[in-house]
């Protein structure tokens, strides 16, 4: 393995591999340093399942067109305008070609998975899921001659005046070494698995967060870059966070610990009080707000409560619901105050207005006279057994990142473009996602900017 490469890619997920492949296809010699062991390679990509790309017509797997303008409007809505319009529109335009490019790299598409019909028009699903996608990208990269090292912990970056010179690396067996490269692509993700760092913004509450991806997403590369003069972008408290089962493991529970049953019941905190409109908007549009909402509750715990009539309305869950024949029995099992829970449910039931239930639209089943209201899909909780899922905030990835331009080139704190440093994926997602989320966006950011970063890094190295 030569000690000087044209392009060094740090990270091992979708963005990193797209960058490595695109740089290699542009003629550069490429080394990928993945900090995780081989099984855990790929960061959050291993847990993903789809990508949101614009397209002007239906395809074999997409049920209809999704124009650039519609994509932009969706992004504008979920971020509340907190996005870089030039960069975002560029990404959306490039996403159209990614649908084909990614297939050329060996990734296979399939129609939307069971239970996700609402995404069938906008999102392309990976056949076999995110790890299958990763496996395909790695096979392609290796076939093209990209070198890959696992368990490769980068301990320092040598950067002078916005110019990357080398990365210091601690290898598990061969010890410390320095790797020089003409260009750097940083695609090493956010800092969601770094609880100490999360605590800087969230305080002790961060101890109660569950991390949906691997423990390797520690943000060390992001921190080094910011410390060495790269311009920061994004609010450090913003992240993709959903409500996941409180019984899930601390790390890497992935997709299967999520709950999509909120709209079918009510959500109470540890005082058995409701705290937000459970029927605000259709899943999955409002799916991603519940992580932050639970994070804001005492002890960062909440309980989705429903009754036996809705059990088959949502996907089967990894952990079974906790059941009680009476509200009081259920409260006992959840260690909630039974009187308070009975009062909350009685008041909720009394406030439910007659209507025609239809969970596929914003229906007219709502409450009146309680705060907060449940504005849709409100039905009485009255048929035992009563059931509950305990939920905690599950952090997927953080939005704090390095600022980049359209070429995925990092900008330094003084606003000047870095000489030879590029970024792609979650490490720069904050450029596009100021807050909020729409399904499949993370992978769009990764593939689009990964491909651009690899191409530009190779161009720099070849000049």
């Amino acid at each position: 393995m030569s000690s000087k490469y044209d392009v060094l890619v740090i990270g091992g997920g979708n963005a990193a591999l797209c960058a490595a492949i695109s740089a290699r296809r542009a003629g550069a010699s490429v080394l990928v340093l993945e900090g995780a062991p081989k099984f855990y390679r790929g960061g959050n990509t291993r847990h993903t399942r789809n990508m949101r790309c614009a397209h002007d017509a239906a395809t074999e797997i997409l049920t209809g067109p999704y124009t650039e303008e519609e994509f932009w409007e969706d992004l504008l809505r979920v971020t509340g305008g907190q996005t870089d319009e030039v960069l975002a529109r560029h990404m959306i335009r490039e996403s159209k070609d990614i649908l084909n490019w990614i297939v050329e790299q060996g990734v296979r598409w399939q129609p939307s998975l069971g239970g996700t019909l609402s995404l069938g028009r906008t999102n392309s699903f990976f056949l076999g899921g995110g790890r299958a996608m990763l496996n395909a990208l790695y096979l392609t990269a290796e076939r093209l001659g990209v070198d890959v090292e696992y368990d490769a912990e980068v301990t320092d970056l040598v950067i002078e005046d916005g110019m990357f010179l080398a990365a210091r690396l601690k290898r598990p067996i061969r010890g410390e070494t320095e790797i020089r490269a003409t260009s750097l692509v940083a695609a090493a993700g956010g800092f969601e698995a770094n609880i100490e760092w999360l605590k800087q913004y969230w305080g002790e509450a961060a101890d109660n967060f569950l991390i949906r991806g691997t423990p390797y997403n520690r943000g060390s590369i992001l921190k080094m870059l910011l410390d060495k003069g790269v311009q920061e972008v994004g609010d450090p408290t913003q992240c993709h966070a959903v409500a996941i089962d409180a019984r899930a493991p601390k790390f890497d529970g992935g997709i299967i610990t999520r709950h999509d049953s909120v709209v079918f019941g009510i959500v109470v905190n540890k005082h058995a009080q409701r705290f937000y409109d459970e029927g605000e908007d259709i899943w999955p549009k409002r799916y991603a707000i519940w992580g932050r909402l639970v994070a804001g509750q005492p002890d960062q715990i909440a309980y989705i409560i429903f009754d036996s009539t809705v059990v088959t309305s949502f996907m089967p869950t990894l952990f079974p619901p906790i059941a009680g024949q009476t509200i009081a029995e259920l409260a006992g099992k959840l260690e909630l105050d039974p009187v308070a829970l009975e009062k909350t449910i009685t008041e909720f039931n009394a406030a439910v207005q007659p209507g025609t239930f239809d969970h596929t639209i914003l229906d007219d089943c709502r409450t009146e006279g309680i705060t907060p209201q449940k504005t849709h899909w409100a039905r009485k909780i009255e048929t035992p057994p009563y059931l509950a899922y305990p939920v905690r905030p599950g952090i997927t990835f953080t939005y704090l990142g390095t600022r980049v331009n359209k070429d995925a080139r990092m900008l330094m704190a003084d606003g000047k473009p870095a000489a030879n440093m590029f970024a792609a994926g979650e490490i720069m997602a904050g450029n596009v996602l100021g807050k909020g989320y729409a399904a499949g966006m993370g992978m769009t950011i990764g593939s689009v900017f990964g491909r651009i970063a690899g191409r530009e890094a190779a161009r720099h190295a070849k000049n």
Partner: protein
Amino acid sequence: MHGTRILDEADRLMTVCNSCRYCEGLCAVFPAMEMRRAFSDGDLNYLANLCHSCGACYVDCQFSPPHEFNVNVPQTLAVARAESYAAYAWPQALSGAFARNGLVISVVAALSMAAFIFGFAALNDRSVLFGVHTGPGAFYKLMPHKAMAALFSVAFLYAILALVMSVRAFWRDISPPIGGRAEGGSIFQAIRDAGELRYLHGGGVGCYNEDDKPTGRRKQYHHLTFYGFLLCFAATSVGTLYHYLLGREAPYPWWDLPVVLGTLGGVGLIVGPVGLFMAKMRRDPALLDENRYGMDVGFIAMLFLTGLTGMLLLILRETAAMGPLLALHLGAVFALFITMPYGKFVHGIYRFVALVRYAQERRSEAGS
């Protein structure tokens, strides 16, 4: 819970998988799983036999070992599948044959071939046994046609009976309680799916063997084996028709239909099993039920022996070796027949029945 440890584990995995569903595009197992929220013993045996063991869901799974969720669907379903063969075996008294199947198959094959050799030697004069016989009826100089036909008919009919009884028990367990009949469309669909090994393909790229690079090798070797077997069976059937309808006695000239079919089939039965055996030896043990090497290899060896002795018989039938080779070949075929209901042969039957059930479920889902 379930009757066995492996069904408990299969249930745990299906609960994990049903809350994920990333693999639903890979094969039939996961779409069938999604039609259920809870799994009976019959459901799990159905899913186990629907699995073709391509390995894609293991390589693609973010929760496979060393992840703490420890999701290994191919291996778990392989064990459950093998246990289901014993559970549905008829008569139940013989289900123990699956426990040490490699040994059972070897002993039966050895005894069968020895019996034919001794039988030929005892009933024939030495000059007949080692003589050169040519022309129509040459084989029957060593064993009268009536005796041969009677013996093999009995063995074959017994195998059919045992298989039918086993399949009945399996079908009862996996079909819905009422109206459990398979209709023609589903059977036709299953014939197509089994015929092309539609689900031994990792969702389109091939199956996983020794590493993370998928190939189509196992499918190709399986096709050689399976169609080789069918061609040999067709050769025997055509020969039987020739004998009874046209009064033409074996052996037939090399260009005649039974010999052409048998030669093509024999080549398949030699090359296919060798390829399957080598693939099995190189396969990642994580994907396999290692306790069933004996059963798998025993069946592969039986097919190989049948093919090999048949081809040698064809090549050397006009020499003095014909007598002993005929004994060996008949011994191999006889052993293959009588062990069919108690060995790996049943995998094809149960998988076909599971495919019928799957086709039926897909049709009723599409219709509802």
